[in-house]
């Protein structure tokens, strides 16, 4: 219980944010209408993805400093889970875009930026497969992971702010937080964010432990 309380907390937070997200009141706004509820699901996916990529970079730095294999496994599993959340974020986003903008994939810097950032992390996984020797693979992929992280940040957060973008929070648009979220929405939104980040970390640790066991079996 002392070790697992945050998993239960994650479940409670996500479950309550889903219930409150679908049933709770939302402000009545033109065009958006009920789709503003997507902010409870779409935005947390991206926050979780960024947190997981950040965890991955931290473990890559740790790997380079110490050379312990377990750190490398943690880094790659964080990226694997991050890509999963990225896919969920893209899908919930496309659903919302189809209703409010009229097309699932308008040519928009925020969307293209996130797609390209995903390509970067898929390239990281391909790079891992291209290297046979385990130590070399761990070291070189850790280097690429650290190298790619700031560029990913520029792609998702800085470039859309500079260009014209339809997406809320970029291209001179206000975020939902500034204008449209009322005081009921805010706590639900933060609950969802914390809950989903914890769920992401949970999935990562599960995958990491499976990976450790496999690794031990292979080295026997």
């Amino acid at each position, binding site marked *: 219980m002392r070790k697992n309380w945050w998993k239960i907390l994650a479940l409670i937070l996500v479950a309550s944010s889903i219930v409150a997200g679908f049933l709770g009141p939302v402000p009545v706004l033109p065009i958006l209408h009920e789709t503003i509820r997507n902010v409870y699901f779409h935005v947390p996916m991206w926050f979780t993805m960024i947190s997981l990529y950040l965890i991955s970079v931290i473990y890559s730095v740790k790997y380079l400093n110490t050379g312990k294999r377990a750190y490398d496994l943690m880094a790659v599993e964080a990226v694997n889970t991050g890509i999963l959340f990225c896919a969920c974020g893209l899908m919930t986003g496309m659903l919302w875009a189809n209703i409010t903008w009229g097309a699932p994939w308008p040519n928009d810097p925020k969307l293209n930026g996130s797609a*390209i950032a995903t*390509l970067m992390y898929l390239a990281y996984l391909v*790079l891992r497969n291209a290297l046979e020797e385990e130590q070399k693979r761990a*070291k070189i992929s850790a280097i690429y992971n650290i*190298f790619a992280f700031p560029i990913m940040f520029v792609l998702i957060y800085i470039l859309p702010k*500079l*260009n014209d973008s339809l997406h809320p929070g970029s291209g001179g648009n206000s975020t939902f937080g500034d204008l449209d979220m009322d005081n009921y929405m805010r706590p639900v939104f933060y609950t969802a964010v914390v809950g989903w980040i914890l769920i992401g970390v949970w999935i990562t640790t599960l995958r990491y432990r499976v990976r450790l066991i496999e690794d031990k079996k292979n080295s026997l």
Partner: protein
Amino acid sequence: MNLFTQVKTLIYKDVLLEWRSKYAINSILLYVVSTVFVCYQSFKSVDSPIWNTLFWIILLFAAINALSRSFLQETGSRQLYYFSIVSPQAIILAKICYNSFIMLLLSSTAFLVYNLIFSNEVGHWGIYMLSILLGSISFATVFTMVAGISAKAGNNSTIMAILSFPVIIPLLIVLINLSQQGVIGGNFEASWKDISVLLAINVVTIAISLLLFPYLWRD
């Protein structure tokens, strides 16, 4: 030897080696000129946004071809020799400087030929030249580090492409924006944001390269 002399010596060594064979630089210049002709034959005439974008795409592929061979020579025993006499920071700095120089030569040649064949009005030469200068340096900083990584992965050209394309796309977008300002004859106030983003990305890339290259290099 301090860092500065080491970098100077290494750049001198690269230039000397290149000057003796002249194979790499001639082949890459020829590559650019032939690509421009291929594009000219297929497009005949283009309007100005496409003219600008096409130029950057030609440069992108030329840069990948030119810079993927950055670490081709540094293999095996020669690497061990460098390891004993110079610091890894000096090596990566020297490679970045040398590659920037190569890219400047490459992009100015490409621009001369391109502008001669596909003649197009450039509104503000200052901004366009600045974008070519910044573009050459940015390509050099990003591709040098990625070439170092892909050299460790067996100098595979597919690896080089998939690793560098996503990383170069933000730079390319900003560069195309900036040079488009030059084509339509904008002013420096309007493009100040793009210039500062480019400089910031370059500073960050060089800093990360300096930090990471020692790990990459040590086998």
